[in-house]
């Protein structure tokens, strides 16, 4: 188990969280502003739901709790976003998010890590988003790093 060290050390089977938080209007509007999502459903005074892409930042929240030492010596590269949406993410409702490292494997000299993130309502356990996130631990392969 690599939980408790660097995020780049995470191993298959590691469980991160759960964490709980309430989605705020500020987070929806500010996140959407940063991503040029200016649609009325996100920038109105009372947004009812969050963009499902926000689930990706739950990974960072899970990292912060499970891997307080931070990123580690290499910057990870995001490779794939894969979100299955079960229902809109409500604003003002407590959410529960859990992460699990599903895979860690080598491909073309680079280490890939797949994390599955499950987002639900905290009160009644309704599934909202099932997210599969794939990262590459380092842009450079191990041989490139050692040659640098």
């Amino acid at each position, binding site marked *: 188990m690599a939980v408790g060290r660097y995020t780049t050390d995470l191993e298959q089977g590691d469980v991160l969280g759960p964490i709980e*938080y309430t989605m*705020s209007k*500020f*987070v929806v509007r*500010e*996140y959407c*502003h*940063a*991503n*040029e*999502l200016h*649609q009325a*459903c*996100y920038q109105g005074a009372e947004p009812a*739901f*969050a*963009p*499902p*892409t*926000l689930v*990706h*930042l739950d990974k*960072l*929240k899970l990292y*912060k709790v499970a891997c307080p030492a931070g990123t580690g010596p*290499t*910057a990870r*590269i*995001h*490779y*794939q*976003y*894969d*979100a*299955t*949406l*079960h*229902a*809109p*993410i409500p604003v003002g409702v407590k959410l529960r998010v859990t992460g699990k490292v599903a895979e860690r494997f080598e491909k073309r000299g680079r280490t890939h890590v797949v994390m599955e993130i499950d987002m639900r309502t905290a009160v009644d356990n309704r599934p909202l988003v099932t997210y599969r996130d794939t990262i590459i631990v*380092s*842009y*450079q392969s191990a041989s*490139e*790093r050692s040659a*640098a």
Partner: protein
Amino acid sequence: MSASISARYQAGAEVRLAPRPMTRERMRWYVDIQETVQVDDGRIHAQPPTIHDDDTYAKKQGLPGIISDGMITTNWIHGLLIDMFGPAAAGTGRLRTKYIRPIYEDQIVITAVKVVSVLDNERKETVYTLEVWCEDDQGQKLTVGDAQVHQRHA
């Protein structure tokens, strides 16, 4: 499932957003939002240097310079889906994106969606299956993926 006759978009339809340069500011907006969302106190919070906003750090990681976070193009695709289908694009369905080429500073990015199929299901929804991608101004794909949007019948 059966083919819909009332769909707004027919199979084969393609929708594109206007070209956008992936400026340094766009990359930094996404960097800044990460810590801001986590703190959630109504203020902006910066984070340590990343490969998305610091050239020196990016070069130390073997990159020629800063590159965009993949979630920017994923969000641009999501935004186009909201434009096309409204809130249904944030409801039931799926979005998958893969970042097949790095996007460098000031590279032009065009966001696109193509309707692959349109079907009605037994839950009185029209189900759109979509190809999604971002390409540069030479037509080279940078981000690729697929999506499914379930739109309830009026």
